[in-house]
């Protein structure tokens, strides 16, 4: 078998072309997911606003009106929790079925499957982003003005993005081999919401137990958002450093696992 004489086809795609193509895949598939989700509904993308708004109303009525929570600016407090947690939960909940729900893409020769978790997390991020002006309006209305610490927000967003993608990789590949994963994940996410301070303050958790809560990365992230937006303080830099490290490790290792298993995806489906 003489492989030296194999004719040279087009030059290997340059790395700049590969990046541009990856970007196009991200944009086009994100657009596809958004359109598919909202195209035939009357409110369309407005649902991205409506559902966190409804949650806000329910939580603030129950916890402030009925249970009498004493947290100041409780509406803002709860809205931050709902939005940040919503992005995380939505990303992971959907990433589990990434490969199983995109069989046609998995069968496409040469398609960079490893971009799919980015697509899902980006789609959920857009839902998050569209509700942000609402949050800022609510903050302004409650007398909270932007401070210098707001400049930390992009960093917090980036950490959450990397963290979500990093967890999405192994989940999506695991679900191809064991379909139980999607059910386990949906139960775990539900449990995890209660150990994330979405509608309560982490300080109500008794001291020895609180340490354990910080094993949940979303505790630090929700904390960071609140200290920036509600108290005008810089987020706790130590926990952000740790989280960045964890997120980077997850994304590198998770992607490796994903790519190592990707040749088995189609035959296992």
């Amino acid at each position, binding site marked *: 078998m003489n492989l030296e004489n194999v004719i040279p086809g087009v030059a290997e795609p340059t790395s700049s072309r590969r990046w541009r193509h990856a970007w*196009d895949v991200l944009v086009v598939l994100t657009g596809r997911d958004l359109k598919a989700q909202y195209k035939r509904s009357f409110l369309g993308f407005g649902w991205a606003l409506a559902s966190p708004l409804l949650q806000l109303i329910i939580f603030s009525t129950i916890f402030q009106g009925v249970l009498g929570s004493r947290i100041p600016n409780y509406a803002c407090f709860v809205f931050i929790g709902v939005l940040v947690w919503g992005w995380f939960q939505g990303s992971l909940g959907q990433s589990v079925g990434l490969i199983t729900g995109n069989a046609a893409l998995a069968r496409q020769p040469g398609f960079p499957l490893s971009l799919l978790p980015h697509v899902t997390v980006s789609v959920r991020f857009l839902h998050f982003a569209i509700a942000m002006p609402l949050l800022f309006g609510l903050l302004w209305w409650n007398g909270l003005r932007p401070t210098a610490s707001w400049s930390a927000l992009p960093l917090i967003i980036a950490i959450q993005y990397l963290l979500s993608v990093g967890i999405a990789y192994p989940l999506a590949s695991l679900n191809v081999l064991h379909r139980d994963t999607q059910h386990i994940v949906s139960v775990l996410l539900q449990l995890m919401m209660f150990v994330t301070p979405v509608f309560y303050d982490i300080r109500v958790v008794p001291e020895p137990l609180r340490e354990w809560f910080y094993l949940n990365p979303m505790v630090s992230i929700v904390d960071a958002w609140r200290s920036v937006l509600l108290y005008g303080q810089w987020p706790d830099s130590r926990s952000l450093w740790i989280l960045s490290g964890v997120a980077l490790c997850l994304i590198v290792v998770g992607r490796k696992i994903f790519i190592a298993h990707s040749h088995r995806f189609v*035959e296992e489906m």
Partner: protein
Amino acid sequence: MKDSRVIAESVCKQYRQSYAVRRKQRDTAAHANHAWALRDVSFSVGPGEMLGVIGANGAGKSTLLRLLGGVGRPTTGAIHVNGRIGALLDLGGGFLGDLTGRENAILAGVVAGLLRSEIVARMDQIVAFAELEDYIDHPVRTYSTGMMMRLAFAVAVHTDPEILLVDEFLSVGDLAFQAKCNSRIKSLRAGGCAIVMVSHGMDQVRQLCDRALWLKHGEVAAFGSSDVVARLFETEMKNETLKRTPHVAKRALGDGVDLVAGENRFGTFEMEIDSIRFHPGTALRSGEPLAVVIGFSAASKISAPVFVVSITRDDGTVCLDTSTHLARKEVPDLHGSGHVRFTMDRLDLGPGNYFLDVGVFESKWLHAYDYHWHAYPFTVEGIIEHKGVLAPPCTWEMGGIPAGERTRTN
């Protein structure tokens, strides 16, 4: 095996089985052979060539296409691919009903490896090719199956693939569209695109493909000129519909090669080829004459059969494929035994290993009476002064070059 776009080197594929299946099969003895989806499959496809992959359902055709596309890895063996792959695997499978034709086309193009700007630039061509000018901005869920497939095909052929993998696609659409697809396929091939097509239509394979690969339970049953392989396949199908497995004894041919029905021997055996003799022998020098004497016997009267001889290089390249039909040689009705002699005045083949395939077919080519595939190997020796299949005597002469010019350039 030079200058190839796709090379498969003894590819084997064994699917991992789930625990439940493994446990069930532990009790049944005869599972060992069925675990292989592909076994020792080798071939190559050069630029501009078209290979048809045929076989019954579950023979491993789709698995093969998938492996060629890099979706999954062979268990052993290797696949070398040189060029960008385009695929028509599940037509319109990635389409989203709620998006318009245009949005889906952009999606399909980007997924196939184009930049968004590139697919947008080709959109007019694609729409015109698919004949969907009036519908391209309607949601795909309002399309008929035919319209969807036209769009999928149009996108795939406009992504400039260098290798195109097609799974049973071209038989759809009306005749006019099929003609358009065929001409597009021709122009892709003229541009150097290698095509591998899975098909159940033997006429299509004969018409479009240069060569065909017949897979049977994951193994190569026959590989060579699409004409012959398609006919062998039809012969076997005929035997199966007649529920008749011909009982012919295994015959030893010497050199450790056995002639076994269903493996390297196909036919309905109403007429049999008894013997093949090479004159002068099976080790030849390039340029020597070669005569092949085909001994046959017919138990009943066979009307005007067609004798076929073809020569294939060991990498599957068809060097010669001829028949009494093509040579317009009248063959009388035959009964009893006799022989046919096929003579080549010069065998101008390059050095290498070859197979002689011989057969006798029904007068209208409907099926094979007897066909011996890759049962008669022979070698050609010679000085390696050529590349390629042909090695005729040739010389170089210098003329019209002034002597002074020549020295000046030195």
